[in-house]
């Protein structure tokens, strides 16, 4: 087995809001101190549970923008939450929660939509363990069988985000930079307007860091003055131009609304990318 993500055991933990700052016009960055947090791999998520005085609970999943223990302080967890109009949880997190507020979180969750540097002793999870298919429930072709031999951790990585789907990618890009990993990393990021860009200063720093990282922005509603292309939704042709070529055999991670993810994933396959090397995470929405 080449490796698989090594992720901490999940559990419920009390979280205290350390800071709540505006991230975009509709989103907030929440810095949490999570008692007993075991750390998390880049790309994992957590569930937030809010409990009303009458005992009613509402639980929602949020991607984690931080990855530990590389950040040093493993009880610190950063989320970036976009307000869903009429939502039960996100309006509280974005507009109401302030330093000192407490709620429960369950995590870290999910080992599928994860990237880890080779230095961590594990390969990136996509396409891992092709040899394991023979031990699977059906020896004739496990899900990894088509992936072929991979040195997963050294495969170039293409991240593709729609809107707040960029949150797990800031954790992956940071983990990549923290490890000074030489794997080429690219992020194609579709946003409505310049004011909707999450983690703009972080991405600027990451692009200047020694680990190879490139950010390509696509503006769908309004572009900055002098931007070379008019605002428009991403097309298959624009996707083909912006992403790593199939000849590089990149691992591709796609995160965004269900519609965005499925549109992009189907184009990637049409463009010749290996379906087994594409990992997707949908957050519903429109």
């Amino acid at each position, binding site marked *: 087995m080449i490796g698989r993500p090594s992720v901490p055991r999940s559990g419920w933990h009390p979280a205290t809001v350390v800071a709540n700052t505006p991230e975009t016009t509709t989103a907030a960055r929440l810095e949490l101190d999570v008692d007993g947090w075991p750390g998390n791999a880049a790309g994992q998520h*957590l569930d937030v549970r809010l409990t009303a005085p009458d005992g009613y609970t509402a639980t929602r999943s949020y991607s984690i923008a931080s990855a530990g223990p590389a950040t040093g302080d493993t009880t610190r967890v950063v989320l970036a939450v976009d307000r869903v109009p009429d939502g039960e949880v996100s309006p509280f997190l974005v507009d109401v929660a302030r330093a000192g507020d407490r709620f429960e979180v369950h995590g870290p969750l999910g080992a*599928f939509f994860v990237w880890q540097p080779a230095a961590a002793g594990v390969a990136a999870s996509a396409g891992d363990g092709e040899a394991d298919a023979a031990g699977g429930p059906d020896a004739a072709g496990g899900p990894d069988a088509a992936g072929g031999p991979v040195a997963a951790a050294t495969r170039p990585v293409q991240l593709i985000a729609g809107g707040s789907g960029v949150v797990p990618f800031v954790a992956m890009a940071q983990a990549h930079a923290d490890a000074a990993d030489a794997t080429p990393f690219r992020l194609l990021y579709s946003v409505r307007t310049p004011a909707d860009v999450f983690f703009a200063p972080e991405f600027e720093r990451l692009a200047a860091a020694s680990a190879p990282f490139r950010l390509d922005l696509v503006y769908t509603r309004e572009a900055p003055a002098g931007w070379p292309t008019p605002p428009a939704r991403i097309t298959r042709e624009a996707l083909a131009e912006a992403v790593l070529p199939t000849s590089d055999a990149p691992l591709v991670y796609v995160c965004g609304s269900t519609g965005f993810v499925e549109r992009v994933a189907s184009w990637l396959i049409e463009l010749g990318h290996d379906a087994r090397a594409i990992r997707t995470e949908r957050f519903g929405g429109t």
Partner: protein
Amino acid sequence: MQHLDGNALAGALAEFFSFDVTTAIARCNGCGAVDEFARAIVFTSPAGTVVRCNSCDHVLATLVESGDRAWLGFSGVSAIEVRRG
């Protein structure tokens, strides 16, 4: 109804299983496809959650939760591969 994918099951299923179900590999009874749960299509509603095969749309699993009880069905899965450790 807007669907999600198997990643969304991680939290709910971590309540019941000691391994990460989203990276477990299941074989669909409907078409024989073998794939990670994370790649399945997930429909959620207040009544419960339905997990469908991304190849043939066959129902793989259902989850209904009510108060202190939960009902887990794996009617469409013939085998699951779980990594140890």
